[in-house]
């Protein structure tokens, strides 16, 4: 028997087996189940219907509830949904509820999971959100599931999983200073298409990847789902260990690829040759070079979400916006409250990011949430409510994704979004990065 990939090894261990192969259907034990305000109430409804009203979750410490989608809205049902999470946490005695209106409130679940130490190497994380794959950056198996599967996990701690074959993407050499993780993942999705990773694990490797910060690695793993992938995965190194150990005392077991591990695809990129790219409407694989789209006039720019609303993303945007003015409406939404605080404490040349953005004329929400990445209720900050042409650090540009079907969304890195906000048209950030 040949060796296993990291994904195969995690699933084998979680299934209590010595080895698994791609295509095997195995029952795996979950370490963490995450749900939020949009899918949590339905999951809880199924859990109660199927396991009984007095049923208890399989592991109180394993359930993490992170309201993040529709928080800063007048929508009554949205508030009712957070109430359902709150009541459930109370009734079940769940310690990990990051409740709205309390100092524990976090914001976007995928970033909150990492910041709060719920992402750990070698573990299995299920979440009722497709971007749960973000946590693969931490050398774990993480994937999105529906309410019914989540209710099953809630009651049993297990889920039947088909072991995916692994597609490996290796980036050799040093990235140019104007290329970010978002450019790497948009490059890959453009190459394989929005269904190129369906039923597969996507591994990111190579010295260019291993030099990335944890937050940049999260951007890579985050958009695996836009390539159709089941999970993303990255090896564990000192960068991973340092991040995780600063946030949790729980022990963890790292995994590495075996020497004889087999890959469904093994694709190599010369990192030095990459350029800033953009995904055009209305599909994340509709890739073009930023410099080819300079004639595209914009009406709006947006920086936020699990993909592009981390503190690193705002630092990168600020590098370009410092001392400049935006030419179009530019909306900024921190993903979490920690990022929100970071806008005040992180500085460039002694100037806090928040002031840099205010000076530039940006519209900044201090309320951390998913906000307009997925449109949301009509009163959502930054929501596209008409025929806007928006460049965004978010993850999807499907028709109507950020609100109105009349809108057009271009996906790009924080550098490219910030540079384009300054000029009012799509702009290669090389022109503005000093």
């Amino acid at each position, binding site marked *: 028997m040949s060796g296993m990939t990291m994904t195969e090894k995690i699933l084998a261990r979680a299934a209590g087996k010595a080895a698994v192969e791609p295509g095997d259907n195995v029952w795996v034990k979950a370490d963490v189940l995450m749900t939020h305000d*949009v899918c949590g109430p339905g999951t809880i409804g199924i859990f109660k219907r199927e396991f009984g009203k007095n049923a208890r979750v399989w592991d109180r410490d394993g359930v993490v509830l992170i309201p993040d989608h529709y928080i800063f809205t007048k*929508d009554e049902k949205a508030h009712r949904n957070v109430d359902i999470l709150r009541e459930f946490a109370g009734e079940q005695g769940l310690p990990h509820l990051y409740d709205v209106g309390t100092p524990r409130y976090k914001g976007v679940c995928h970033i909150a999971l990492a910041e709060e130490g719920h992402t750990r190497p070698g573990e299995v994380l299920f979440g009722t959100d497709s971007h749960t794959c973000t946590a693969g950056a931490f050398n774990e198996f993480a994937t999105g*599931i529906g309410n019914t*599967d989540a209710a*099953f996990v809630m009651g049993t701690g297990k889920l039947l999983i088909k072991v995916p074959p692994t597609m490996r993407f290796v980036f050799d050499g040093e990235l140019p200073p104007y290329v970010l993780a978002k450019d790497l993942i948009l490059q890959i999705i453009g190459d394989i298409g929005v*269904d190129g990773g*369906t*039923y597969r694990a996507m591994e990111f490797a190579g010295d260019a990847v291993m030099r990335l910060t944890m937050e940049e690695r999260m951007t890579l793993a985050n958009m695996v789902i836009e390539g159709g992938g089941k999970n993303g995965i990255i090896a564990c190194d000192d960068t991973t260990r340092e991040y995780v150990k600063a946030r949790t005392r729980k022990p963890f077991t790292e995994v590495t690829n075996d020497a004889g591990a087999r890959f469904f695809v093994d694709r190599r990129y010369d990192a030095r040759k990459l350029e800033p790219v953009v995904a055009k409407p209305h599909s994340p694989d509709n890739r073009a070079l930023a410099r080819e789209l300079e004639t595209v006039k914009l009406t709006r720019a947006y920086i936020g979400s699990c993909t592009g609303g981390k503190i690193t993303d705002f630092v990168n945007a600020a590098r370009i916006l410092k001392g400049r003015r935006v030419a179009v409406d530019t909306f900024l939404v921190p993903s979490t409250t920690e990022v929100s605080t970071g806008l005040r404490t992180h500085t460039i040349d002694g100037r806090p990011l928040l002031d840099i953005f205010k000076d530039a004329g940006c519209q900044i929400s201090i309320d951390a949430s998913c906000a307009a990445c997925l449109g949301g209720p009509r009163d959502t900050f930054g929501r596209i409510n008409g025929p806007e042409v928006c460049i965004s650090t978010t993850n999807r540009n499907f028709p*109507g*994704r950020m609100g109105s079907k009349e809108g057009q969304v271009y996906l790009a890195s924080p550098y490219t979004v910030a540079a384009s906000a300054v000029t009012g048209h799509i702009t290669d950030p090389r022109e503005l990065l000093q």
Partner: protein
Amino acid sequence: MTTISGPVYVLGDNIDTDQIIPAEYLNLVPTIPDEYKKLGSYALVGLPLKPGDQPFVMPGETTTAFKILVAGKNFGCGSSREHAPIALGAAGAEAVVAESFARIFFRNCVATGELYPVETPARLVDGFRTGDEAVLDLEASTITNRRTGAVHELRPLGDAGPVIAAGGLFAYARKTGMIAAPAEA
């Protein structure tokens, strides 16, 4: 029940979950009966329509006339929202015949039992027009276009079929003795 007969609704490639059920309606909770119905009334409301295109659910209606959807590649891509197969099922659709499905959407169809996700090896979106009467035979794994008379082979549903027929993952597990009946609610 192994055949589904009725008019088809034809869609293209990469129909994503935002088109199937836009995020502004995700405040509705599928396990609450009134909200389940409402989700059905919004099924595919995010689909951009050209002039003359028929909506999947007519304005003012809560259900659709179309029992079968015929689509291209990667149907249901995007979000893990179970609201997507539920909205289509609540509207009265019973099956989607597509060249391929996004993984989570396929799994959610089976887990909820809302919709049969049937794969077609051939591209059918050009052989059907919205409104064509069709017969989907799940046992024979074929779909017949009554307008053209063409019979198209489909990929068998395999073990997913009985799960959907039973009403989803939990109903199937209970029916087959995999799990016990719930403690009385």
